[in-house]
């Protein structure tokens, strides 16, 4: 289905089954000891979190966001459920951390009325500007819980354009960011 919708890589919840071109969304760091770690105790604790699949730690809890730091990130992506909660104080703290992904989803927006969606577009513009100035990664996600709720790549592009975001630039930056965030966690058993 992802191919049909022109989506190269999907982010889905980890259900103990590893598939190609999927980045797994988990709610905490994976702690699966690898043979490499067992044979070399000098390896850092971040190596212990290495898995055979790429993953990103996603959370919507502000406490977990505040616990993160650029040197030892607790989470990779912070899901913004309410722009009211994502206030100036929180922005200042996020700015200091840097490199974190800020995710907004379309799923909840479907049931909102036109007025709220219009306001959301404006909030997205501001969030994108904030992300650019604070070296955070802006992430627009479908938030789909089923195939019917998936959003095609072309529709994402259209929404990004309405929010004054250049789709090409966005996908390029997101690709690089995902690669940099997920790559170091993958342990390839050779």
């Amino acid at each position: 289905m992802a191919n049909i919708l022109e989506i190269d890589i999907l982010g889905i919840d980890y259900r103990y089954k590893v598939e190609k071109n999927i980045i797994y969304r988990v709610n905490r760091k994976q702690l699966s000891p690898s043979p490499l770690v067992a044979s070399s105790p000098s390896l850092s604790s971040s190596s212990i979190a290495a898995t055979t699949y790429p993953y990103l730690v996603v959370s919507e809890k502000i406490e977990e966001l505040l616990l993160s730091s650029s040197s030892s990130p607790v989470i990779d992506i912070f899901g913004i459920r309410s722009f009211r909660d994502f206030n100036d104080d929180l922005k200042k703290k996020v700015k200091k951390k840097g490199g974190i992904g800020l995710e907004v989803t379309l799923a909840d927006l479907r049931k909102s009325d036109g007025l709220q969606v219009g306001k959301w577009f404006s909030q997205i513009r501001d969030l994108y500007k904030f992300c650019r100035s604070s070296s955070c990664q802006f992430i627009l996600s479908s938030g789909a819980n089923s195939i019917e709720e998936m959003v095609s790549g072309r529709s994402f592009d259209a929404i990004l354009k309405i929010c004054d975001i250049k789709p090409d630039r966005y996908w390029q930056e997101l690709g690089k960011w995902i690669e940099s965030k997920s790559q170091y966690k993958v342990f390839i058993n050779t």
Partner: protein
Amino acid sequence: MAILYSGQTDEIGIINLIKKRNSELFGHVATEKSSIRLIQSKGTNLVIIRCKLEGLDNILSAIALSYPPLITLDMSGTLKRLRKRLSIRNELTKVNTVDNVFRTGDEVSFAAPD
């Protein structure tokens, strides 16, 4: 464009849903200018619509932000090409009635970039 939908809504309901959402987001004038029209709907949960190229981005956004959820499966400047593309993807989509949805050679009035 080919739109996949779920639930018990009929094809007229889908068109009305897209028009309503588009009007909410971009206004009635923009919706009328977009000329959203139902082309065909024979398959289960699949509807073919056409719109003007100028309003394409708005329509795509309205589809992505509609409830019940709709998915833009594919789009093309001509129905012939749309049929071809959907046929190739038929196996993946599991939309078993796609083959009978189109009449070959039918043209529509918009052209989307490949």
